[in-house]
Each structure stands twice: as structure tokens, then as C-alpha cells.
């Protein structure tokens, strides 16, 4: 297509990226900067016109797969207003409350449960932040530690299935979403494990408090009330893997199930709570998904100038092996994740890197998981780390105040990222065990 193009791929890439970064430096919202960066080229290139903005945004939004995003957000919001989060909190407290830094351990464990039901890290950060940050400060934890652990543990939601990022990845790059769900389990457990170890280290060093061990009866009681809530991940993930319903439908099932639990089993949701959950969902989903549309326009421009192909030729000459390619993917997503929301990052960067990965012969599922784990870091790395921003906003502190603790907590997690790169089994083992037909 670029045969009759006025600009060469190199020039077009420079114009697009310089305009984009220039505008976000001037605090133009990211979603608008992505669209605006494309306009000058559309104006000067004779074969292009701004109508592309409309065609591409329409095509991006007219997607049954992305519909899962508001559903997972709504599930999370219903869990909060309907008392499901409270039940899971009771269970996490009974499980790990007696450990050193018990409340912070609860935070990680609750994030883990939350991650298995909702697919949204931002919903996790905002709801758990409101519970744990004030509670931890009250018990004598340092504020910067409390904010950092809330933000860092919330990223589990995108790695542990179900996950919005897996659905978007599967949808844009034609990878089986069921396989991605299964592939996320082991890295998710590893991440939660190293987070708990980090909390343990902190608590030993700083003498953070523990609470009394729950009796066995208390533990059983906590498990019993949490059982209906803990069924949700089984329904969602099981339904997807056994092919009962599609990813979007499983998200809708999660909404209905969370709504029924909140209304009839835990009986904590009224009309006011429902209204709030719906409005919060619409607000956040609208903003996040609008950005997907303009990111698609930006991605279309890159594809029009065949910039991914140019990059592939450049990179192929380096002669990368599997592991080098893995590190390259991780590095690219770590850097991009600092500046961009995860969904547009997948749409733009994922599609650029895909040909390179196919060339070196990496399994698409492993590629996806390296990308998703790396993007999970992006949720808490400044300047644009959404979960960190949310946690800081709840505690009313600046990002710089907590950044040291965040970096300390991210270092062991970086080890997990390296494991997913070095050992394909970390991601591929469980899917190959349960549903090998999903893997290529």
C-alpha cells in the first residue's frame, strides 16, 4: 500500500511518535494525543483522509470481544457494593492474618481472590485501597508501604484469569483466550508468592504487627460464607475452557452471578448501590475504551506505512534467538507500559512485535504472557501507572512519596518475568495439560 505514499516509513514513524509524545508532555489526554498525532499525516498524504479516524474507531468499538471489559468492571463494582469483597476479606484474614504483617498479607491474598473473579486491576486497586490503606496506617504500617503494596498487589488481576488483557490480546492477535486463561495461573501464583515473601521481609525488618491466629472453626466459617463467591472463577474459566460460552459471555455470566449473590445471598445491594456500580463502570469503561479506538487509528497508520515490517527487517539482522526475543518483548512492553495504558499498548506494540515472534518461533501463548506480565508492571510504574495513581489518590500522596517501596516490591516480581522468558513451561505447562488442542 505504501507504494504511492508521500512519506517514507521512517519519516512517518518519526512524525507520529514525536507528535504523540510532544502532546502527552503538554498534558493532552493520551486518548486524544493518539488521534491528534495521526491528523497532520492524514491531511498531507493524498490517499488518506480524516475519515480513517471514524472508520477505525468504529471498527474498534464494534467488537463483541471488547464488550467483556465493561462486564468485568461491573462484576468488580458489584462485588464491592454487594458485600462479596467483605466475605473474601474475612476469608483472607482467617488464612494469613496471623503471619507477620498479617494485614498486608491479607491485602495480597485478597487481591489474588479478587483477581480470580474480576479481570480488572484498576477496580482492585480502588476498592482494596479504600479498605487496606487506612486500616494498615491505623495498625502502624508506614503509609508509603501501605500504598505501594495495595498498588503492586492489584496487578495480579491482569495476570490471573479471567483478565481483560488476555481477552483483548486473544481478540486482536487470534490466540485462544482459554489457553491464555490457563497460562496465567502459574505466573499469577508465582507473583502472589513473591509478593507475600516481600511483605514477610518488610514485616520482619520493620516489626509490622500480626493478629491472633483464627481458630479452625473461624476458618471453616469464613470458607463457608465465601464459597458462593469462590465459585465465580470456576464458572468463568471452566465455562470458557469447556466451550460452554465465549469470553464475553463468560464475563456476562460473572455479572449476573455477582448481581444475584449480592442481591439474594449476601443481600447487601440496594438500588442505590446498583446505580453507583453501573455509573462507575460506564465512566471508567468509556474512558478506557475510547482510548482503544484512537490507539487503533494510530496502529492503522503504523501498518499503512509498514512500520512493523521495517522494524522486523531491522531486528532480523540482529539474529535473535528465542530467549533474546523474549527479553526484547519484555523490554518493549515494560518501556511502553510506563507511558501507555495496557490495552492500547497491546493493540499498538503487540501487533508490531507479532511478526518478530512468529519469525523466531516462540509459542504465541508464551509471547502473550511475557507481554501481559510486563504490562502488569506498567500499571505501577510512573509516569503513567494507573493502579499506582489510584492508590496514591486514595492516600492523598504524590507518586514520588511511594516510588522507593514500589521499586523494592517490583524487583522480586521482575524475577518472575525472567522465569516466564527463560522457561516456556511456566506459561505453557498448564494449558498443555488441560487443553493441548489450544496450543499450536
Amino acid at each position, binding site marked *: 500500500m505504501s507504494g504511492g505514499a508521500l512519506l517514507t516509513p521512517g519519516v512517518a514513524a518519526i512524525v507520529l511518535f514525536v507528535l504523540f509524545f510532544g*502532546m*502527552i*508532555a*503538554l*498534558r*493532552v*489526554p*493520551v*486518548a*486524544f*494525543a493518539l*488521534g*491528534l498525532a495521526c*491528523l497532520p499525516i492524514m491531511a498531507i498524504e493524498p490517499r488518506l483522509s*480524516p*475519515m480513517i*479516524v*471514524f472508520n477505525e*474507531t*468504529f471498527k474498534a*468499538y*464494534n*467488537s*463483541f470481544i*471488547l*464488550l467483556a471489559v*465493561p*462486564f468485568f468492571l*461491573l462484576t468488580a463494582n458489584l462485588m464491592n457494593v454487594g458485600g462479596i469483597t467483605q466475605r473474601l476479606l474475612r476469608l483472607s484474614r482467617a488464612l494469613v492474618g496471623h503471619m507477620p504483617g498479617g494485614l498486608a498479607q491479607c491485602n495480597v491474598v485478597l487481591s489474588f481472590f479478587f483477581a480470580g473473579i474480576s479481570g480488572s486491576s484498576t477496580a482492585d486497586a480502588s476498592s482494596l485501597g479504600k479498605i487496606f490503606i487506612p486500616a494498615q496506617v491505623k495498625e502502624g504500617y508506614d503509609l508509603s508501604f501501605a500504598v505501594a503494596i495495595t498498588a503492586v498487589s492489584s496487578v495480579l488481576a491482569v495476570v490471573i484469569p479471567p483478565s481483560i488483557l488476555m481477552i483483548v490480546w486473544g481478540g486482536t492477535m487470534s490466540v485462544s483466550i482459554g489457553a491464555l486463561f490457563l497460562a496465567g495461573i502459574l505466573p499469577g501464583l508465582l507473583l502472589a508468592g513473591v509478593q507475600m515473601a516481600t511483605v514477610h521481609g518488610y514485616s520482619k525488618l520493620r516489626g509490622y504487627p500480626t493478629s491472633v491466629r483464627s481458630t479452625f472453626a473461624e476458618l471453616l466459617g469464613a470458607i463457608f460464607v465465601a464459597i458462593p463467591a469462590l465459585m465465580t472463577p470456576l464458572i468463568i474459566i471452566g465455562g470458557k475452557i469447556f466451550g460452554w*460460552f465465549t469470553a*464475553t*459471555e463468560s464475563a*456476562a*455470566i460473572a*455479572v*449476573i452471578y455477582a448481581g444475584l449473590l449480592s442481591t439474594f445471598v449476601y443481600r447487601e445491594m440496594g438500588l442505590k448501590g446498583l*446505580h453507583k456500580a*453501573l*455509573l462507575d*463502570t*460506564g*465512566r*471508567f*469503561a*468509556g*474512558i478506557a*475504551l*475510547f*482510548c482503544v*479506538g484512537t490507539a487503533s487509528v494510530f496502529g492503522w497508520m503504523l501498518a499503512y506505512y509498514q512500520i512493523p515490517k521495517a522494524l522486523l527487517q531491522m531486528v532480523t539482522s540482529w539474529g535473535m534467538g528465542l530467549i533474546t526475543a523474549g527479553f526484547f518483548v519484555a523490554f518493549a512492553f515494560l518501556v511502553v507500559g510506563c*507511558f501507555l*495504558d495496557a490495552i492500547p499498548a497491546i493493540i499498538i506494540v503487540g501487533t508490531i512485535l507479532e511478526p518478530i515472534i512468529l519469525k523466531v518461533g516462540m509459542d504465541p501463548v508464551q509471547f502473550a504472557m511475557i507481554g501481559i506480565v510486563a504490562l502488569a508492571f506498567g500499571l505501577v510504574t510512573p*509516569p*503513567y501507572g*494507573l493502579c499506582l495513581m489510584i492508590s496514591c489518590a486514595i492516600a492523598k500522596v504524590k507518586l514520588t512519596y511511594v516510588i522507593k517501596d514500589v521499586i523494592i516490591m517490583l524487583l522480586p516480581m521482575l524475577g518472575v518475568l525472567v522465569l516466564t522468558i527463560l522457561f516456556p513451561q511456566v506459561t505453557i505447562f498448564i494449558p498443555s495439560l488441560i487443553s493441548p488442542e489450544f496450543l499450536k
Partner: protein
Amino acid sequence: MHKFIDGYYRLLSWLLVVSVAILIIPVSLQIFSRYTALIPSYIWTEEMARFFFIWMIMLGAMIGIRDSSHFDIDLWPELSPRANAVVKLFAHTGILVLALVFVWYGVKFVQFGWNQHSELAELPMWYIFIAWPISGATWLLFLGPQVIKNLRVLANGEPQP
């Protein structure tokens, strides 16, 4: 004017709530019709869901301007009120340009869809396409008071009480 903008904002918020709530209906119909014989399997459920979804996104994007909740990246150190107003006005100019594009070319987009119909439910496509120019116009409307506020700060050198 402020009253009108407030009322319009409340209307949009209400429509947003309805659009999120309604999304769940066609998708559940689709699942239930597959597994039970109670309701026929409607072929248009998926299309219906996608169309409400598009409206939900555009409504959320409209409201986001009034809430100033579209994500931006703050790399600046603490600025004086005046310098801060200048940066904000730059950002507003950016949004303004895209809003004008959405209005101007959005009208063409609607005209282009005027005689088109959707594949399954045979809905006129302009029902959907019109969300784009409406978004552009709504952004302009919501941006107005914010631009005026920052211009005042720029002129007086301090935030208005």
C-alpha cells in the same frame, strides 16, 4: 448556561447508566437461547449488544471531558497557578482540535451512513454514526467553561475562589 450544561451532564450520566445496564440483556439472551428451548435464538442479539456498547463508550468519553478524567501524564513539577493554566490551555487546545474534527468530519460520516443498514437487525447505521459528531459537540460544550476558567487564572494570576 451553567444550568443547561449541568442538566445535559445529568442526562448523559443517566443514559450511560441505562446503556451499561441494557448491555447485559442481549448477551444473556444469547446464552440462554443456546441452552434452553424456552426462547428462540435471536440472530440479532450480538449486533444489538455491539451497538449499545458503542454508545456506552461514546457517552463515557463525553462525560470524561466534564469530569476531566481522561487519563493524562503529569511530568511537570509543581507549577505556579498561571503556568499551570497555560499547560491546561495547551491540553484543552488539543482536545478542541479533535472535537472539531469529530464534528466536521462526523457530519460527513453520518451522511455516508445515511442509507446504510446494519447486516442483521437492519438498523439505519446513522443511529450509531451520529454518536461521533454528538461527542465532538459535547466536548466543545463541556470544554467551554474550563477554558474560560483557565483564561481567567491566566489573566488574574491566581485561581478563582
